[in-house]
């Protein structure tokens, strides 16, 4: 009897749990579904009341129209190039810096780290105009350089995050590697990087998403239509007089999809990171 009621309350708990989770999932996924649904609608269906979730005809030609109106393939290629280079640059420069700041011993190391951290306090708009002036002087405007090159010079937040992660990797491993005749770079390459994968995946994903979704950088640096990115193309669909919501949403789906895929792939690393155990200090 008692056992039965226990089972029942457990079932009720599960039922409740699933109900809450389902409600949460619906709330999270509804805007996404609305986007996909609107992207397949005819223009006049977009604001019908009551709202239409499933359009009368699926207008896949909306997608064709997006590619027709603006050079979206070119935008896609440009965005992927910039985001790829930025991600590579950040991973390379920040992991090296974080390695130096966490594993190597040299005078003023912590001071350097604190100065680096202090740069996080300066709001981006303050440095905007000087940086733009520098890029202009270098004649880098209307090229990818102002967007890509800074990534190869580190950044406070990723360095901080990687340093904290690297600090927790036991020093015994370094010592063992040194015993086996490993150089400092060898330790970085053979020990720290492989063990730092989860943190690197996080940084990589954040940088990739940041570069992919960046609107302001491309807006001020990229003039020519041949150099422009997806976010700028997307902004064009937000019309001056009125907005073609069905096209805007189709374009948004195109822009969001790669990010979604990137997340699905790197999510595996996140999970790996969480389950990574087995080193005894």
């Amino acid at each position, binding site marked *: 009897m008692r056992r039965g009621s226990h089972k029942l309350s457990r079932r009720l708990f599960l039922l409740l749990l699933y109900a809450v989770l389902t409600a949460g999932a619906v709330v999270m996924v509804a805007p996404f579904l609305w986007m996909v649904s609107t992207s397949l609608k005819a223009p006049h269906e977009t604001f019908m009341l009551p709202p239409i979730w499933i359009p009368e005809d699926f207008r896949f030609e909306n997608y064709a129209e997006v590619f027709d109106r603006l050079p979206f393939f070119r935008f896609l290629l440009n965005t992927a190039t910039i985001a790829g280079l930025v991600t590579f640059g950040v991973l390379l420069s920040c992991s090296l810096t974080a390695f130096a700041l966490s594993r190597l011993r040299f005078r003023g190391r912590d001071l350097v780290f604190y100065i680096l951290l202090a740069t996080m306090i300066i709001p981006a708009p303050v440095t905007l105009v000087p940086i733009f002036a520098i890029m202009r002087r270098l004649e880098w405007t209307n090229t990818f350089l102002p967007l890509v090159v800074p990534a190869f010079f580190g950044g406070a937040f990723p360095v901080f995050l990687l340093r904290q992660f690297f600090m927790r990797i036991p020093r015994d491993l370094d010592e063992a590697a040194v015993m086996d005749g490993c150089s400092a770079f060898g330790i970085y390459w053979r020990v720290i990087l492989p063990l730092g994968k989860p943190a690197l995946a996080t940084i990589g994903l954040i940088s990739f998403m940041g570069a992919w979704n960046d609107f302001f950088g491309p807006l001020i640096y990229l003039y020519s239509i041949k150099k422009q990115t997806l976010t700028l*193309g997307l902004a064009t669909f937000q019309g001056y007089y009125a907005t073609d919501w069905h096209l805007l949403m189709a374009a948004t789906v195109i822009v969001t999809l790669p990010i979604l895929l990137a997340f699905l792939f790197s999510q595996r690393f996140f999970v790996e990171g969480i389950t990574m155990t087995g080193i005894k200090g």
Partner: protein
Amino acid sequence: MAACGGEDEDRRIELRWGLWGTPEAVQNQRRFARDFMRLHPNVRVEIEPVAGDVTVAFSMRLAGGDAPDVLYAGNWFLFEFADKGTLLPLDDLIARDGIDMGQFFDSALSGIQWDGATYALPEAINVEMLFYNQDIFDRYGVSYPEPGWTWDDYLEKARRLTQDTDGDGRTDIWGCYVWTWIPGFLPFMLQNESNMFDDDFRRFTMDDPRAIEALQFIQDLIFRYRVAPGRQALQSQLSIDMFASGRIAMGSFGYWGVRELQGAPFRWDVAELPRRRTTGNVVHVHSFAINRETEHPEEAWELIKYLTLDEPAREVVYLIPAQKRIAAEMIRAGNEGMPANAEAILATATDPNTVSPPFGPRFGEYSSVLGLELDGVWLGKVSVEEAVRKAKPQIELILSE
């Protein structure tokens, strides 16, 4: 110059063309650039579409000496650039090539000429029209707007068209809609024989009783008669989308509404705006101007002539072509997508009381002051008198600088 291989090497002159607009317009303009290059084998045209705030982007690039040679301009920022001396005055070139400016609407010229000089060639204009949903009018037995109709007719129709269809105490169909920004309220002021400034742009004249009466009328539509949606009822929805979903019976929108409402699931037509003491409407003018610092003024001039006088002038989308003859051919009842009363659009465009709003060189500054002060009016918290009284000294200070 023969087309002898090495395509891009032959094109010694590069023209940068800054533009913006709907994706459809950008698509067309890319095509115009290609056609122009075919006609001028020594020129390469680089398209530079601007996303976001055009005024900011162009002024930043002009200030940095990094601006395109040809700029697609609107009268709401053209004069600011002209006043700073960043644009090439075109009068000499116009006289040299004998271009007949009379082929454009007078209202278009009001948006490209400043202080006696011409700074651009006009591509297209946009005027405000009254769009009305005939299905809603029929359902409640309200007669359609007629030429020469007045504010009283407008209010009377709006009151009869405002409906709470499901009886929940909330309005489901709004009788009318007025945009509470300059293009929306200025026509009412002009109709009541008032304006924002005196003729030489020194005195702010919105404290004139007639101007106040016009603004008061709009505030009353929202808060006294409750026939027009205020900001809360609109929420974040665009008013044209609200009209397209059948929740507004009469709305003032730009001519672009004609395109926007294609395929709407109800019958609609356009009418001239109602009048008070006289008619009144505002015009937005889209034009092409030349950067004063361009290294290739002749080629830039050829490009803007091509865009405004040649084939592209017939392919204006969304707006009214600036050439009277082309506009008359395109905007005609019976043409595809044109409303029955298309005549009213041309009548509005040629009406002498259809004028460029006072987009002076300091428009950006005084319009933001005005916007802030009028905010309370459109929220129903501040009286019109109080708002304009507060705005006046601030705006006149800006004008006097």
